């Protein structure tokens, strides 16, 4: 969640007049209608009724978000190839990569479905979302027209947001390590730290991305 410190007052409640429809904004949570206006630098606009944040622009946001999305892609791909965790019991050792973890359910017959789901939740969906965000924002940052299908890509990325569970997986690692600690000695690999860093980047990226600004940019260029 974004910091609450400098949240500004909400946009004025709309007098039912005749403004063009694309200057209006409806709160997605409570349907209250407002006249959409860009808040001042570093300020946020939230719904006067239910306090849902509606508009929270940042300076250079496109470039920053793209940089963070690239970081996510690089860290995720790199984390696939480095050792993740290893255990050591009385001379026996076993290493597991991130993919091994996702595919742990593969040999369980009907549980293979779960392997696909886990791989999607912790690797594929976070990776796909980062790629979609780059696809949507790169032309906007360069001041060009959006690439074909950009609006559908952005919608897909937003739809997938609750299903990206990398941060839950990291906490899951912590729990698993405590569970296994009286059975074996555990060593962290490079990929573990990469993944932990990745989670911080994902949370930060979601925090600084202003959806309304992006939708408006995608809309404006269409009508140009």
């Amino acid at each position, binding site marked *: 969640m974004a910091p609450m410190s400098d*949240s500004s007052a*909400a946009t004025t*409640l*709309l007098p*039912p007049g005749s403004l063009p*429809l694309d200057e*209006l*904004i*409806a*709160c*997605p*949570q*409570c*349907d*209250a*209608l407002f006249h959409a206006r860009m808040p001042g630098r570093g300020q946020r606009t939230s719904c*006067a*009724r*239910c*306090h849902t944040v*509606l508009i929270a622009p940042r300076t250079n946001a496109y470039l920053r978000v793209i940089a963070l999305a690239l970081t996510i892609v690089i860290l995720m791909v790199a984390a696939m190839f480095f050792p993740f*965790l290893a*255990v050591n*019991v*009385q001379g*026996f050792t*076993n290493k*597991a990569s991130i993919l*091994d*973890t996702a*595919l*742990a*359910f593969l040999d*369980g017959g*009907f*549980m293979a*479905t779960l392997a696909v*789901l*886990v791989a999607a939740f912790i690797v594929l969906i976070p990776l796909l979302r980062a790629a979609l965000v780059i696809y949507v924002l790169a032309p906007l940052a360069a001041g060009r027209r959006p690439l074909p299908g950009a*609006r*559908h890509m952005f*919608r897909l990325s*937003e739809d997938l947001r*609750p*299903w990206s569970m990398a941060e*839950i997986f990291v*906490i*899951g*690692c912590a*729990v698993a390590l*405590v*569970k*296994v600690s*009286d*059975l*074996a000695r*555990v060593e962290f690999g490079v990929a573990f730290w990469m993944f932990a860093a990745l989670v911080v980047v994902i949370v930060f990226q979601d925090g600084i991305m202003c959806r*309304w600004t992006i*939708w408006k940019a*995608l809309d404006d260029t269409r009508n140009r």
Partner: protein
Amino acid sequence: MQVDDLESTGRHAEPVTARGAGLVACTRCTRVWPMGETRCARCGSELHSRDWRSLQRVWAWMIVGIVCYIPANIFPMLKTQVLFTHTESTIIEGAIELAQHGSYGIAFVILFASVAIPVGKFVAIGFLAWSVRRPERLHPHHRHRLYEVVEFIGRWSMIDVFVVAILAALVQLNFAASITPGPAAITFALSVIFTMLAAQSFDPRMIWDHDGRGPDNHLTSETP
């Protein structure tokens, strides 16, 4: 504080809603369209001013979620083999074992994520869907807060599935020790997914209609 002022004025003067202004709002990108449009021309989402059928979807997903949650607690989540002893443990047995080894914190996390959150979610989603038609039970601000908490926290139940995946991938040390996932892993994961879908199906705008007295549906005549 400014926010409090807005809140109190909002309680007396009901704000203009998109529906009240004869518009239909896109809950995905916050754009508004004339009532009667069926698809948002900006992001391509389906438009519903109020989706009464969404309540049926909420109940349907939730019932499937509850059905999956029952075997998730009966069947073993983890099958552990250390030298020549085999043990199987359900979710709750796993947490009790942790507590017996002195890891009270982790035992609490598991119990909270795997028992308190799912059960709490069933109750909370059920209450939200039920209270749309009996809105006098709780102030809309509180119901909306409940909805936000359910949306935010629901995904975290997946943590136990990830713990099982990590343990099963990591602890594969021939006869010294090995851990394999039990059938509860998949039913539990499905239960979490279905309850997430139930929460996503709920249309929070129905909490706020008529200043919290529910949407203008034929059923509102029931309420005093």
